[in-house]
C-alpha cells in the first residue's frame, strides 16, 4: 500500500521526512537552539523583527484553525487581536489590573466576541461570512477609534510591561523569548487539536458539510468552536503585543492587518503548520528585507506574492510528501 499517497496532514509531509524519533528530536533540538541563539546572531534589529514574525506565527496559527482547518473565510481576524490588546491596555491602565489577571479577561472577552459574531452568522456561505467578518473587524476598529476609554485615535499609551516571578519582561530580548514560548505553545496546541476529535470534525465539515452532518456532527457548533479557538489565539497575541509595544492604536487593527495574517496562512500552505509558520515569516521578513528599496518595497513584495501564488497556488509548503 506504500505506493499510495498519504493524505496531507497538519505537518504537511514533515512527518515522513522526520520518520524516526531520533530525527524528530534532533530537529526539535536544532530549532530550539536556533531560536535561542538567533538574537545574538541577528542583533537588535533582527531580534525586533523576529519577535514580530513570531507574533504573526501565533496569529496565523489561530487564523489557520478558522480558515485552514474549518474552511471559514475570515477577513476580520484583527478584531480578536484588538480585543486582546485593548482589554489588556484598558484594564491595566484604567483599573490598575495586573497583566496576568488581564490576560484571562482578554481571552474571555474574545470568546464572547467570537460567539456574538459567530453564532448568528456561521450558517452563511463563505463569501457572505467573509463580508460579515470584514464588517465586524471594521466595527471593532471604528469603535476603538471613537471611544474615550480606548483613547480614541491616539490609542492607549504607557501600557506597563509585565513581571513574571520577579522577572520584568521589558527589553526587546525579553519579549523575543516570550514570543518564542508563545509560538511554541501555539504550535503544540495546533497540532494536538488537529489530531483530536474536534480537529477531525473541522476537516469533515470543511470537506463535506452534508456528510459530516449525516455522521452526527453539529456543523454550527463545530464551526463556532473553530472560531472561538481562533479568537483565543488572536487575543493572546493582542495582549502580548500591547505589553510589548506599550502603546496601541486603532490603526494596528485595520483591514490591512487582517489581510496580512490571512496572507501568512494561505501563502505558506493552508492547514499545514510548517506552511503557516513559513507564511508568517515571509509576510513579516520580506518587507523588512526589502527595506533598502524604499517605497518600492511593497511593490516588489506584491509582485513576489503574485508570482508565488501563480506558481504554487496551494501555498509554498509542499502539499504532499516527496516519498510516494
Amino acid at each position, binding site marked *: 500500500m506504500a505506493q499510495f499517497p498519504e493524505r496531507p496532514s497538519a505537518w504537511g509531509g514533515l512527518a515522513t521526512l522526520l520518520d524516526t524519533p531520533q530525527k524528530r528530536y534532533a530537529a526539535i533540538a536544532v530549532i530550539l537552539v536556533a531560536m535561542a541563539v538567533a538574537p545574538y546572531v541577528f542583533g537588535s534589529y533582527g531580534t525586533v523583527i523576529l519577535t514580530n514574525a513570531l507574533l504573526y506565527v501565533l496569529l496565523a496559527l489561530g487564523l489557520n484553525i478558522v*480558515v485552514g482547518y474549518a474552511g471559514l*473565510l475570515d477577513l476580520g481576524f484583527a478584531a480578536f487581536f484588538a480585543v486582546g490588546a485593548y482589554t489588556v491596555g484598558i484594564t491595566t491602565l484604567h483599573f490598575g489590573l495586573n497583566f496576568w489577571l488581564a490576560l484571562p479577561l482578554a481571552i474571555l472577552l474574545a470568546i464572547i466576541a467570537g460567539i456574538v*459574531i459567530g453564532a*448568528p*452568522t456561521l*450558517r*452563511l*456561505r*463563505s*463569501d*457572505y461570512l*467573509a*463580508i*460579515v467578518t*470584514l*464588517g*465586524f473587524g*471594521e*466595527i471593532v476598529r*471604528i*469603535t476603538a477609534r*471613537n471611544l474615550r476609554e480606548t483613547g480614541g485615535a491616539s490609542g492607549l499609551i504607557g501600557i506597563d510591561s509585565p513581571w513574571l516571578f520577579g522577572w520584568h519582561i521589558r527589553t526587546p530580548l525579553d519579549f523575543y523569548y516570550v514570543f518564542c514560548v508563545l509560538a511554541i505553545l501555539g504550535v503544540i496546541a495546533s497540532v494536538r487539536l488537529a489530531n483530536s476529535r474536534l480537529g477531525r470534525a473541522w476537516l469533515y465539515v470543511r470537506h463535506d458539510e*452534508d456528510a459530516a452532518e449525516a455522521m452526527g456532527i453539529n456543523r454550527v457548533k463545530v464551526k463556532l468552536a473553530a472560531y472561538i479557538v481562533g479568537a483565543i489565539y488572536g487575543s493572546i497575541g493582542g495582549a502580548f503585543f500591547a505589553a510589548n509595544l506599550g502603546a496601541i492604536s486603532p490603526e494596528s487593527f485595520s*483591514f490591512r492587518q487582517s*489581510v496580512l495574517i*490571512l*496572507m501568512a496562512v*494561505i*501563502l505558506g500552505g*493552508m492547514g499545514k503548520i510548517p506552511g503557516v509558520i513559513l507564511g508568517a515569516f515571509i509576510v513579516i521578513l520580506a518587507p523588512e528585507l526589502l527595506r533598502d528599496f524604499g*517605497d*518600492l518595497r*511593497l*511593490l516588489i*513584495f*506584491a*509582485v513576489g*506574492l*503574485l508570482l508565488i*501564488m*501563480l506558481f504554487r*497556488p*496551494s*501555498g509554498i509548503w509542499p502539499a504532499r510528501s516527496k516519498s510516494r
Partner: protein
Amino acid sequence: MSIFDIFTNQLLNGIVLGSFYALVALGYTMVFGVVKLLNFAHGELYMVGGFAGFLVLSFLAPYLGPGWLGVAVSMVLAMIAVGFLGVVIERVAYAPMLSAPRLSILITALAVSLVLQNGMLTLTKGQYVPFGAALGFGGIKLGNLFISYNQMILVGVAAVLMLALELFVSRTQYGRAMRAVSVDKDMARLMGINVNAVIGITFFVGSALAAAAGSMAGAYYGSLWYFMGFLIGLKAFTAAVIGGIGSIPGAMLGGLILGLLESFGTQLPGVGSEWKDVFSFSVLILVLVFKPTGLLGKPEQERM
C-alpha cells in the same frame, strides 16, 4: 434648514453616493456571478480608471476643453483602457488559478490589488493629483435643496450605464452566454459557448464600469490618489453583498441602500459621521442574518 430640507438634501446625497457604489458594485457582482471570484482588485481598477481618465484628459483638454465634453470623452477612453487592463489581469493572474483552492485566488486578487496600488504609489510618489476638469458650479435651486448640474449628470450617466448593462445582459447573445456560464460553466461549454471569451467580456465590462466611476469621481471631486480605491472597494463589496452577490439589480439596489444608509446615518443623532460605518456594517450583518443571500440574491440551492 427644516427637517424636511435636511431629509431631501441627505436623500440627494445618498443617491449620488449610491450611484458610485452601485457602479463599482456591479463589477464585483458580475465577476462573482461568472467566475465565483471576489475580485479584491476591483477597487484598484476604479483608482486606475480615475488616473487613466486624468491622463487622457490632460492630452485632450487643449482640444476639447476641461469641461463636460473633455471629461466625457476621457471617461469613455478610460473605460476602454481599464476594461482591457481587467482582461489582462484575468488572463495573467486569475485564469491560471481557476482550478486552485478558492482562497488562493482570493490572495491572488489581493496581490493584484497591492501591485496596482503600490505601482501607482511609485508612479505618483504618493502625491494627490488634481484631476484638472472644470465643470462649473451651476445647478438648480428648489427651495433649500440645491442640485448641481454635475450631480444630475453624474447620476444620469450612472443610470444610463446601469441600464445599458441590464439590456446587455438580458437582451444580447453575450449577455445570455454570460448568464449561462454563471449558472453552470461546464454545461455552457457543452452548449458551445466560448467560456473564456465570456469571462473576458465580463471582466472587460466590470472593469470599464469601475473606470467610469473612477473618472467621474475624479472629475467631480477634483483629485486623485493612489489609495482612493481601497475604501470604495470595501464599500462596493458591501453593497454587492447587501443586494445579493451575483445579482445585477441587487448590486444597484445595494449601492443605493448603502449610499442612503451612510447619508442618513451621518445625520442621525446618536450615529453621526463618527459611527456611520458601524451603522452601515451593522445593517449589513442584520440583513445577512435574516436574509442570508442578500436582498435580491437567489435563494440557496436545495442541499444534497
